[in-house]
């Protein structure tokens, strides 16, 4: 199965394959990918300062992420792996809310219950990320089954990597999706290191697995954002059309070696007469300053109140949880200088 590609490694469109998008649309896409790169860099710095315990950068995966997002409607649901948290921002989730979750500060919507890669962005249909690898593949199938049962035109997209691809839940999720012909897109992102992936998954293309589940599958050059968009858009159209799930194998790094998705898009922009370096500069410095300003504000608000540990276990706290909360707060009143939050 030859991977679908639209751009050559330099970023110039292949013969007859020019996506012919408006320049504004391409610049907006470039902006999103640059912002993602800036976020990776600044969060890396926050990690070194000890403010963020763990983070998985999106670098190298931007074409998977933004090519997919462009093909979805706001009503479609996203089930992400740990690497795609910034996708929520692209869908309109506020930066300060995202950073509050990253830092676990008082205004975090999850009250600091989850660790930095486990984002929840319900207003933009971005389901809580879970560290156990591959579990979300089954959830995507289940949600898509619900979408089908309700007769909506929505679909679910799930990103996962080679570790999840080797999990039992991956087999189970694909099997259920094939059995119930659900409107879902299963997007596998390779690691970019073929030998490492072969050590986990064997040598055969991951997309070959689709046939065994009766699921249509395609391979795509995963550093070519236009190719990813085309593959996901086709999968989404078929999902809405009642034609069931698609498995997409997105090859990180591209089939030609280590082609960077952002550099490739910038090559394309240059072929359209734009100055990519100038576009990048226009986004980079301002966005970093914005992130750093928001981080300082959030650090000033401090951690969530002590009692928040006990919230959201159940819709209504049980008497046992209430008693435990009172016990901890009483303890802190005595031993933490009267501070309970």
């Amino acid at each position: 199965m030859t991977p679908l590609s639209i751009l050559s490694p330099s970023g110039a469109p292949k013969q007859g394959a020019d996506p012919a998008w408006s320049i504004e649309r391409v610049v907006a896409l470039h902006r999103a990918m640059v912002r993602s790169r800036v976020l990776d860099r600044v969060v890396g710095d926050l990690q070194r300062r000890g403010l963020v315990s763990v983070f998985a950068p999106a670098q190298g995966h931007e074409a998977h992420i933004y090519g997919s997002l462009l093909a979805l409607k706001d009503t479609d649901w996203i089930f992400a792996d740990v690497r795609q948290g910034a996708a929520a921002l692209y869908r309109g989730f506020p930066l300060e809310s995202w950073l509050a979750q990253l830092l676990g500060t008082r205004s975090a919507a999850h009250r600091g219950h989850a660790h930095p890669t486990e984002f929840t962005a319900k207003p933009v249909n971005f389901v809580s990320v879970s560290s156990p690898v591959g579990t979300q593949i089954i959830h995507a199938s289940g949600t898509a089954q619900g979408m089908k049962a309700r007769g909506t035109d929505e679909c679910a997209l799930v990103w996962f990597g080679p570790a999840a691809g080797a999990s039992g839940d991956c087999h189970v999720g694909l099997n259920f999706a094939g059995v119930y012909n659900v409107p879902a897109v299963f997007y596998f992102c390779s690691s970019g290191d073929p030998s490492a992936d072969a050590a986990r998954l064997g040598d055969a293309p991951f997309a070959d697995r689709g046939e065994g589940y009766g699921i249509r599958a395609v391979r795509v050059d995963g550093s070519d954002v236009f190719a990813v968009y085309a593959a996901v858009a086709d999968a989404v159209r078929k999902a809405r059309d009642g034609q069931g799930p698609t498995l997409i194998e997105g090859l990180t790094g591209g089939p030609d070696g280590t082609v960077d998705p952002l550099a490739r898009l910038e090559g394309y922009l240059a072929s359209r007469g734009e100055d990519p370096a100038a576009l990048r500069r226009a986004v980079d410095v301002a966005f970093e300053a914005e992130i750093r300003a928001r981080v300082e504000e959030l650090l000033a608000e401090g951690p969530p109140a002590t009692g928040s540990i006990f919230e959201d276990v159940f819709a209504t706290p049980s008497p046992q949880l209430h008693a435990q909360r009172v016990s901890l707060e009483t303890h802190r009143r005595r031993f933490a200088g009267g501070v309970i939050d």
Partner: protein
Amino acid sequence: MPTMNIIQAVNSALDSALATDPDVFVFGEDVGRFGGVFRATDGLQAKHGEDRVFDTPLSEAGIIGTAIGMAIYGLKPVPEIQFSDFIYPAFDQIVNEMAKFRYRSGGQYPCGVTVRTPFGGGIRGGHYHSQSPEAYFAHTAGLKVIVPSDPYTAKGLLLTAIDDPDPIIFLEPKRIYRAARAEVPEEPYKLPFAAAVDREGEHVTIVTYGAALHEAREAADLLAENDISAEIIDVRSLVPLDEETILASVRKTGRVVIVHEAARTCGYGAELAAIIAEKALLHLEAPILRVTGYDTPFPYTLEQQYLPDALKIFEACETTVDF
């Protein structure tokens, strides 16, 4: 009022939930066309359609993962795990996903799944059709654990569970699926997740749940013949636990025997004993005793010797009264 067994009561509850709420979905292995290995879903697919009541592949992780995906989408899935002994392939989905979705999303993604599963021994099922896994789930923050003991509680608690916004492990005592019969209203009704005084008594409190409740009743009859008056508490809801009903009885009798089929070490009875010791110590006239399964895998041939029965409960009550 019709007389039903537990299977019929469960069927009646599911039928009523499916009829009144389009968000309810019932599924599992052999649940659809065949109507369930114990017939609990008999006739429901024919009545409510293949989209609402359906068979699944044999994959417990898939059944629960699918239910999670539906629940966070806003539906009310009621999956069945054919025997609780086979729930472990779904353990990660239950413990790390279903139980934590509300918590890790700060309440934004509630996960109102009701997992029905038969549990307990006494059906000549050996160690893969007889287990009582309630302690694993009671130990997991975010899960509610509900155990009916007869047809009336089965229907009322199940209807409460299906409408509850939190994930629930609903353990059905399969040994008495057909043996226990009672009058059950045809129309829907709900019972609270609370304990009940099953029988009033003066000298000793037997705290139990599920099929063991019926052994406790038989024991109480034997004790009565020996002038010992036993009060029986049907716990019904392991999480959340209705401590006050249990403690009120302990304060009255001063003696406690806890009964469950599950193995003893770190069994649910250990938690009950700890709570009673913490909150009613000065009311106790004797050590708290437990009548439980043993710390062995569930045996096949000698299962009746493994199970807590009326005579073992009788003996423990006698011991505590004579202390």
